[in-house]
C-alpha cells in the first residue's frame, strides 16, 4: 500500500509538485499522465526518497519513508526508468543480481542467485543470462531491467515511461509483464505518455498539470475530452474501443493537404 499525502516537492525554491495526494493498493496499476514537465518524474523521485519533499508525507505500508533508510526503501520499492543505456560489459545475470543490492551483505548467497534466476524466468530473460548487457536490443534490455526490479522483491513497482523508445510489440510485452506483477499483489505506479495504453492497462489514472493533480479516478472518469484539453492544451475525441473494451483517444487534427500538386 502506497499513500501520498499533501506532497509538495521541488528543486531549490522551485516547486514542481504541489499538494499531491494519491493512494495505490495491492493489485492496482496506477497510471500517472500529464505533459512534459508536469512533475511526473519528480513524483517518483520523492516516493523513493532520492529527493526530499518540501512538505507532506509518503507512507509505504503505513510507514513514513522519513523513518526508513535507503536500503529499507529499496527492499520495498523498485524503479524501472526509461530505457537506459549501459556501456559497461556486465553480463545480464550481473545486472539482475544488482537488484539484490539492498539485501547482500558481503557476497551473494544461493538464495540471492535463486531469486535472480526466478526473476529472469518471469521476464523471459533467462536465455540471455550470460550475454553482455551492451549487446541487447532495447526490448531485451528493458525486460532485464524489470527482472532487476523483481529481484528486489518489491511491494511497489514504479515505472518511469517504461515503454518509450520501444516498438509496439515490446511495449505490449513490457506492460503485460507489469500487469501480471500487479495481479500477483504488487502496487504498480507507472508514468506513461501513451494515453491509449494507459486507458487499457491502468485501473486508476492520475492526471497532472504544472505539478497539480487535476483529476484522479478510473480511465473513464479521467480521460474525458475536457480533462485532456485542460492538461495538454489539445482538442481530442474520446471514443469507446469495442475491441479492447477500453477508451480510444484521438487528437483532433486538421487534415493535411498535399501542397505539392
Amino acid at each position, binding site marked *: 500500500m502506497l499513500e501520498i499525502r499533501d506532497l509538495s516537492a521541488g528543486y531549490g525554491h522551485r516547486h514542481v509538485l504541489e499538494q499531491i495526494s494519491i493512494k495505490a493498493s495491492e493489485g492496482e496499476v496506477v497510471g500517472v499522465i500529464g505533459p512534459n514537465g508536469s512533475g511526473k518524474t519528480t513524483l517518483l523521485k520523492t516516493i*523513493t526518497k532520492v529527493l526530499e519533499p518540501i512538505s507532506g508525507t509518503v507512507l509505504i505500508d503505513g510507514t513514513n519513508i522519513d523513518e526508513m*533508510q535507503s536500503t529499507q*526503501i529499496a527492499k520495498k520499492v523498485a524503479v524501472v526508468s526509461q530505457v537506459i543505456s549501459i556501456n559497461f560489459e556486465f553480463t545480464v545475470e550481473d545486472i539482475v543480481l544488482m537488484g539484490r543490492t539492498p539485501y*547482500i551483505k558481503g557476497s551473494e548467497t544461493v538464495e540471492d542467485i535463486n531469486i535472480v534466476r526466478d526473476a529472469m524466468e518471469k521476464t523471459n530473460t533467462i536465455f540471455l543470462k550470460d550475454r553482455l548487457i551492451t549487446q541487447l536490443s532495447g526490448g531485451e534490455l528493458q525486460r532485464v531491467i524489470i527482472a532487476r526490479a523483481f529481484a528486489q522483491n518489491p511491494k511497489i513497482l514504479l515505472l518511469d515511461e517504461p515503454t518509450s523508445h520501444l516498438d509496439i510489440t515490446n511495449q505490449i510485452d513490457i506492460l503485460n509483464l507489469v500487469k501480471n506483477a500487479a495481479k500477483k499483489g504488487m502496487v504498480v505506479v507507472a508514468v506513461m505518455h501513451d494515453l491509449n495504453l494507459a486507458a487499457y492497462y491502468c485501473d486508476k489514472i492520475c492526471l497532472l498539470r504544472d505539478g497539480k493533480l487535476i483529476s484522479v479516478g478510473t480511465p473513464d472518469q479521467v480521460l474525458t475530452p475536457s480533462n485532456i484539453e485542460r492538461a495538454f492544451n489539445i482538442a481530442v475525441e474520446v471514443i469507446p474501443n469495442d475491441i479492447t473494451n477500453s477508451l480510444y483517444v484521438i487528437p483532433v487534427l486538421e487534415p493535411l493537404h498535399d501542397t505539392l500538386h
Partner: protein
Amino acid sequence: MAKPGKSVIFILALLLIAAVISNTAIGSTSISPDVTAKILVTKIFESILEMTGKIFPSVTANILMANPFIEKTWTDSQEVIISDIRLPRVLLAALVGAALSTAGCAMQGLLKNPMADPYIIGMSSGAALGASLAFVMLLPVQFLSFIGAVITIFVVYNISKIGGKVPVDTLLLSGIAVGSLLAAFTSLIIFISHSPHQIIFWLMGGLWTASWDKVKITSVMIIFGILVLYRFAWSLNVMLLGEEQAQYLGINIEQVKRYVLVLSALVTAAAVSVSGIIGFVGLIIPHIMRIIVGPDHRILFPASTLMGAVFLVLCDTFSRTIIDSVELPVGIVTAMFGAPFFIYLLRKRRQSLYA
C-alpha cells in the same frame, strides 16, 4: 561465456611471486635465481622462527637444534645484497605499483571517466609541492609529500561540495584547478631553488631510496587502504549504471564517494611519498585489466592490484639495470613501455574502451 575472473587472479598472484623472486636476483652483482630463492626462503624461515621463539621458546629451540636450514652456499655479502638492498626495493616497487593501480581503478570507476588516474584530482601536485618545500627547507621529504597530498584532496573535496553532495564533474574540475595552482608553486620553487635537480628527479619518480623502514610504513597504509577499497567493489559496480539508478537500489552514493576518495588518497599519498610521481601505472593497468576481466570491480580490483605490482617491479628492475651504474627514473620507463602497449591495445580493440 565463462568468467575468466578467478583464474586470472590466481595466475597474476603466481606471476607476482615469480616477479619478486626473479627481480631480486637481477642486478649489478650477479646472483643466480636459485641462490636468491634459497636466501629468501631462509630469511622468511628465520623471521618466522624469530616470532615463534617469542611465543613458544621451547618448541622453537627444539626446531633450531635440528638445524632445518638450507645449506648455506652463498656469501654474507650476497645475503646482504639480497635481503637488505634488493628485496626491500622490489617489495616497495610492488607496493607502490599495487597502490597506484588500485587507486586508479577506483577513480576510473567512481568518476566514470577513462582519463582518471590516482593523480587526477590534484593529489600528485600536492605531493610534489610538499616534496619541493621539503627539499628547499631540508625537511623530511616523505612526510611533507604525504601531507601535501592529503591536504590537497581535503581542499578539493570541500571546494566541490555543494549542499552535502559532491558532483563528480565539479570534483574533476576543481581537482584540475587546484592541481594547476599547486603545480605553479612547485615550478616557482624549482625556478628559484639553487639545486633544482633533486626536485626534478623526485618528480620523475624513482625507488632508489627504498629501505625496510619505508616498506614497513607504506605497507601498512597501502595494504589496509586496498583491502578496505575492495569492500566498495559492489557499490562501484552498481554506480556504473548511473547515480540515480544506484540510489534506487539503496546505495548511499555520497558516502561511497567519500570513502572511495579518502581511501584512494591514502594509498596514493603513501605510494607517492616514497616514490615520487610515477605516471601511467594508475592510468593504464586498470584499463588493460578491464579489457581482460571486464568491469566487475570484485575481480577488476584484485587483478589491477596484482598487475600493477608486477608491472612496476619489472619496470623498476629495467630502470636500475639497463645502463651500467646509472639509474633511470622509473617514471620514464613506465611511460616508455606503458604508453605504446596501451596504444597497441586501443588500436587492436577498435572500439571505445569505456562508456
